[in-house]
């Protein structure tokens, strides 16, 4: 175990808060944290990771929520020889009372390294580093306090949504309510992996997509509206008076030429049918333009990172769906998707890859959905067309 960390010390310099300082804080009072520091210094020296593939560890009744991890030099770093992480399902929107946070801190100081990620990039609270023995008691205490594990492995991963109606004027759906409801409904799917691979759900309240759902979720929910966005002409004029070059910065950047600025009447006109609800004009003039009134969401599917067939962005499956409790239409769709994927997917085949392999047409038929032009950027160019005759 190294007491000297000359390489890591370099990372305590500079204005950005330092994670090294954070580990050192814990290292003073926690042996596992101290060994973590040593392992990290070792990696900085050797320029390779010193973690081995994790074994299967977990808590009773669950198959998910814990990432097993072992150090490759247990003799040197005995207190971090096993260093599993626990994924704790965050409350929707990442709001906390200090009371709940302090509870987690106390529990983790007792059972783990005291190091955490607030948050993991799926959205969970990541409690970083504990032993196999401590997993169950830690879990028991956490659930006592009202916290449960999130997803991992070939399961539904912890759903996440943007701050939405809690603090954002643009949210067309109640992302927090929806995410909480889906999370509660699908507890079994989150905790007991049984699918070909992982499955992610994310919801953003509007097309700005502040949880990057379109890039990271197999099932992407993005709030939108069916009618016309609302323009407050007086407020528009206010922006223009304050110096906004509305022609150059708003009208010209509208992707579908849906806006016309009448300099004479000082009126911003919307060609309602042409608007593709990109959010740009709203973003630039939040006091003057707002989404419409007939709200709902576009459902897209297939987003994921590069493994195995390359990265995908989610694509449109349902152009418009009303999103209101008890969210039955969405839940039905999710269940149908899982059933089909579970039946047809190969091991480590994400939904997008399965659809690509078996065909979007097949998928649509199985889902009972009609093809609509909104699903494609453009129709096919090749003449290799199947007909059922």
């Amino acid at each position, binding site marked *: 175990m190294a007491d000297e960390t000359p390489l890591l010390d370099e990372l305590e310099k500079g204005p950005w808060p330092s994670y090294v300082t954070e580990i050192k804080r814990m290292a003073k009072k926690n042996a596992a944290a101290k060994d973590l520091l040593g392992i990290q210094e070792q990696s900085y020296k050797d320029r390779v990771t010193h973690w081995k593939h994790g074994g299967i560890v977990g808590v009773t009744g669950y198959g998910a929520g814990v990432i097993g991890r072992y150090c490759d030099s247990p003799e040197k770093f005995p207190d971090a020889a096993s260093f599993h992480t626990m994924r704790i399902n965050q409350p929707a929107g990442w709001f906390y009372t200090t009371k709940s946070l302090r509870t987690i801190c106390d529990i983790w100081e007792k059972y783990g390294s005291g190091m955490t990620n607030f948050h993991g990039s799926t959205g969970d609270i990541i409690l970083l580093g504990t032993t196999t023995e401590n997993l169950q008691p830690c879990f028991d205490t*956490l659930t006592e306090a009202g916290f449960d594990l999130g997803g991992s492995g070939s399961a539904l991963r912890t759903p996440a949504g943007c701050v939405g109606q809690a603090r954002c004027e643009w949210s067309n759906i109640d992302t927090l309510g929806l995410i909480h409801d889906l999370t509660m409904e699908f507890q079994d799917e989150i905790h007991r992996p049984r699918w070909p691979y992982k499955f992610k759900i994310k919801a953003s309240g509007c097309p700005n997509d502040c949880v990057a759902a379109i890039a990271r979720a197999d099932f992407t929910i993005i709030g939108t509206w069916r009618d016309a966005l609302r323009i407050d002409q007086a407020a528009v004029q206010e922006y223009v008076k304050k110096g906004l070059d509305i022609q150059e910065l708003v009208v010209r950047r509208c992707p579908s030429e849906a806006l016309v600025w009448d300099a004479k009447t000082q009126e911003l006109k919307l060609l309602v049918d042409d608007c593709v609800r990109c959010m740009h004009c709203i973003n630039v003039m939040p006091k003057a333009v707002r989404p419409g009134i007939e709200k709902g969401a576009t459902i897209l599917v297939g987003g994921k990172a590069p493994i195995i067939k390359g990265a995908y962005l989610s694509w449109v499956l349902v152009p418009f769906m009303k999103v209101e409790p008890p969210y039955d239409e969405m839940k039905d769709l999710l269940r149908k998707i899982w059933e089909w994927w579970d039946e047809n997917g190969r091991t480590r085949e994400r939904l997008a890859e399965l659809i690509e392999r078996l065909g979007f047409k097949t998928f649509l038929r199985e889902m009972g959905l009609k093809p609509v032009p909104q699903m494609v950027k453009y129709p096919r160019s090749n003449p290799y067309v199947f007909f059922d005759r």
Partner: protein
Amino acid sequence: MGRTDIGPPDFHEMLPDVIKKNYGTWKYHEIPRPGVLKHVAESGDTVYTVRAGSPRLVSVDFIRDICDIADKHCDGHLRFTSRYNIEFLTPNEKNVDLIIADLKKLGLPVGGTSPGISNIVHTQGWIHCHSAATDASGLVKAIMDEVYEHFVETKLPNHVRIAVGCCINMCGAVHCSDIAVVGVHTKPPRPDHDRVVAQCEIPTTIQSCPTGAIRRHPDQSMKSVVVKEDLCMYCGNCFTVCPAMPLADAEGDGVAIYVGGKVPNARKPPMFSRMVIPFLPNRPPRWPEVVQAVKKIVDIYAANAKPYERVGEWIERIGWEAFFRRTEIPFTEQHIDDFTHAVETYRTTTQFKW
């Protein structure tokens, strides 16, 4: 025995009063200064948000520190953002300065609002992952130190989302970031034949390879595999299913840089990030080549893009050839796609710049 399937706490319990009261009825917002948001509700109520940077990998004591601030000024509530920043919400304008002052004491920067650089979405790296080709937290610290001014100020054409993935699994929205820093291996896996027998399913291992580079060991008695090295592009997928095929290598591992991705539907549709630097060496603790490359790209973007143009939109307008010319990044064979849909990336027009 713990309870199972209780799920996360109901978020309603976590909301500050002003949020609960005005839920779903927010009207507009302003950004009075970098790191501070002001949201006004239909009711006339106002909530101020102070946003602070965080290293994400934090001790429980760090959490307690920020809880102290929230207890003092925010009635015991706080939230985190989708990019790990901490948000302190208060209906009371006067608290804003007090919160900022307390954050200063903790050494936490206030900022991260648009148009600037917010926190870097990142991953585990050498801190916890067996797959890592580089460290994430260290790269983040080194880069954020360098672009710090853009976190605390808002003077870029639009926001620049930076992400770090420590291997090509790209945990995070790395593949759709304005600037993405990705750990890469560049040497094929080295099957450890004794362990392959013990730990791996051979058919699964062979199937895991996207390019079909893995074959049964020619010596049937070996019950192991060999890698056809010229077919391997070091993705590590085999290592994920078979731990006996490590690729990590002090010299071979390093960092690639991708640029021009975005997620929002604003103006242009979402875009993938594109590789611009295939390889830079791993040079902990501060990865000077990587940091300088990121800085240079940010600087050239800042000086040349039009307002609201994201990095990718700017490059689309000026053309990739102009991007490479201006950044003086050499264009190589590696830049030309050769995966499944490669042919869709070839330039099927005479429209280009010299």
